[in-house]
């Protein structure tokens, strides 16, 4: 699998507005994004799997994803699996952090017990993030232990959603029809940065990288390889 620029864990909260457990999912995910693991996590709104485009639906294929649901309906986990990919971890608040729903307050205003549940769920999410990224956390320094930091963007980022961007994708013409290939711009950028020029040997590596995020029918592999290689050559010529 290529080391694409963003190795982060995706977090998806059900955000269910009618129960306090839904509010807990939302606030716990925000706590992880803002305070506990801001550099290692990214989020997307669950409904974007339906309302968004291919780039949005690629979210869980691109990021190992933790879903956080408020109740046993597990809308976030099921929706993620249905539209994107199977989540790496699925947390259900009503199973774990809060045995007594009535003590949590209302969906709009959590009680002290509800806010404690937020912290507990946030800690649980952070532990899963560390595990998924093989990250060892130094509790004294409050940062990752040297050598265990995942590949990161160099510039600082705000805890925000992916819904303004999605996973970059590109439309190519393959075997007479248009297909959308997830992560293609990132793969091209990475190959060029690695000094891999368009060639027959690069063609095989390119198509293997593309296959990780996209379904390529066996019978059309050569057509895909040809189209991707031509596009990569254009990408290198254009200096995008």
């Amino acid at each position, binding site marked *: 699998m290529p080391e694409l620029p963003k190795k982060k864990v995706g977090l998806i909260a059900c955000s269910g507005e*009618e129960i306090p457990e839904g509010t807990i999912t939302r606030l716990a995910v925000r706590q992880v994004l803002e305070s506990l693991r801001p550099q290692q996590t990214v989020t997307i709104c669950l409904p974007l799997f339906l309302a968004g485009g291919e780039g949005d639906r690629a979210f869980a294929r691109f990021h190992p994803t933790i879903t956080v649901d408020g109740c046993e309906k597990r809308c976030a986990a099921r929706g993620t699996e249905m539209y994107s990919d199977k989540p790496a971890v699925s947390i259900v608040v009503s199973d774990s952090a809060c045995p007594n729903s009535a003590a949590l307050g209302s969906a709009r205003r959590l009680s002290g017990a509800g806010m404690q549940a937020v912290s507990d769920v946030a800690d649980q999410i952070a532990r899963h993030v560390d595990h998924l990224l093989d990250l060892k956390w130094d509790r004294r320094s409050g940062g990752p232990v040297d050598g265990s930091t995942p590949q990161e963007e160099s510039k600082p980022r705000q805890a925000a959603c992916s*819904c303004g961007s999605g996973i970059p994708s590109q439309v190519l013409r393959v075997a007479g029809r248009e297909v959308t290939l997830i992560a293609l711009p990132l793969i091209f950028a990475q190959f060029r940065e690695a000094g891999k020029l368009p060639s027959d040997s690069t063609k095989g590596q390119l198509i293997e990288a593309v296959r990780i995020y996209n379904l390529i029918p066996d019978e059309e592999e050569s057509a895909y390889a040809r189209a991707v290689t031509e596009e990569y050559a254009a990408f290198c010529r254009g200096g995008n």
Partner: protein
Amino acid sequence: MKEKVLIVPCSGIGKSLGSVAREGAYIVTEELCPERTQLMPLALLVLGDKEPQTELSSAGAIAIDGCVRACAAKVVEGAGGTVAHGLQVLDVCRRHPDLKPSGISELDESGHKLAHALAEEVKELVDNMRGEVTHA
């Protein structure tokens, strides 16, 4: 009107305007028109389950979106519902240029004021929707 008007807010957790949409929906359904409206969580509609779809098909819906991607309106329509009115919080923002909301987990004062302004607009729509039906 056969059923309560369904209020479907954006479930965004990445931007302040999503939080304004949600808070505005709570104000409408809990304070301004609790007898005439009902909150519909967007997550329930994502899976295509029958129960929420049945509710949608028998009631008018007001979608409140926090960003231009308009998930609430699109998902309601995708689930077979009818968006009687689709609101963008950004439009409400433009009508109240003095309010600059910030905060996501906890809205600031400006965000709460904007949520109240949004809720008043939704209430007016609810009143009109019921009027239309009553006089039909």
